[in-house]
């Protein structure tokens, strides 16, 4: 017959394995705190974009440049990252195209902004490396802001 003691013992082993083998990654709390620390976020309606799965395949995680994609609703943003010395260049393409505002926030490095051209393309150069978040401010008529979770570039 099962006893409470046996359950407690098994639970203790499960706890040890869960805590040792699958703890929350170090730095995740700080990355999440950075992701929500957006200026004036209280005053805007924003949508949260999701990174597409291809990111892992592209090897971006771990600091290798590559192409990553994020999307929300009908908006898709493709981003290509190229290392330029200590910094990097970000080439992006927004669909549907339009002169949307793009902001790249890098933890401990402030942010860089630009505006996409009518074809939806944008380029940011000399972007510092680190925990990075993108914000897209859709052009005036729609007044939508899209934010991504961070990615380590």
């Amino acid at each position, binding site marked *: 017959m099962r006893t409470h003691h046996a*359950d*407690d013992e098994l639970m203790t082993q*499960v706890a040890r394995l869960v805590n040792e083998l699958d703890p*929350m990654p170090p730095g995740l709390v700080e990355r999440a*705190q950075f992701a*929500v620390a957006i200026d004036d976020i209280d005053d805007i309606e924003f949508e949260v974009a*999701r990174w*597409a*799965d291809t990111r892992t395949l592209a090897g971006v995680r771990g600091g290798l440049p590559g192409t990553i994609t994020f999307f929300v609703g009908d908006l898709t943003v493709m981003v290509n990252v190229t290392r330029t010395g200590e910094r990097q260049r970000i080439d992006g393409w927004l669909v549907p195209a339009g002169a949307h505002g793009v902001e790249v926030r890098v933890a401990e490095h402030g942010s860089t902004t630009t505006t996409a051209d009518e074809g939806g393309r944008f380029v940011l150069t000399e972007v510092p490396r680190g925990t990075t978040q993108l914000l897209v401010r859709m052009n005036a008529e729609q007044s939508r802001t899209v934010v991504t*979770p961070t990615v380590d570039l």
Partner: protein
Amino acid sequence: MTELQTASVAKPWEGLEGRDRNAACMIAAQAGDRSAFDVLVAELSPLVWHVARSNGLDRTSAEDVVQTVWLALLRHLDRLTEPRALAGWLITTTRREARRVQTRGAGQIELSSEAAEQLPTTEPSPEHEVLRDERDRQLWSAFHQLTQRCQELLRLTVLAGRAEYRAVAEALHMPHGSIGPTRGRCLNSLRALYHGDSGS
């Protein structure tokens, strides 16, 4: 106004624990205190993490979901009218987000919620390499053959057993140290899988 109020006065959640502490942080965050929101992120991210991991996400996807859920809370901050229900809201939102990520990964195949709950996570665990001995390996492997709902319940039981996660225990109606009937069944399943494994 908020800045004036919070500059010199002790934070309203100081000295509080569990759900009272979360609720005090929620109310302060709703009034515009960003440090209150940061406290919630620091203290409840492990809850979001373990729910995401129980619901079939690999570690990389779970990291994204932790951030997505906090951004979603920020977005809905003023619409959460019951601050004491935060832990429950986080659990529900994380499950939904995990399902969304998996649906996308599985080529847009929609799973009914029942099917998803019954689905064991089949992901091979890279952590196997660091397992100390064969018994640990078998138990960890058996754990991953449990239903998602059982894995979640057991992971949350692990969290709820720690003093700083009293809010989790409260949200799940898990008094400290108690193993309810559902958890008993999950532990029985785990025991059966574990012994089945070691016998083969």
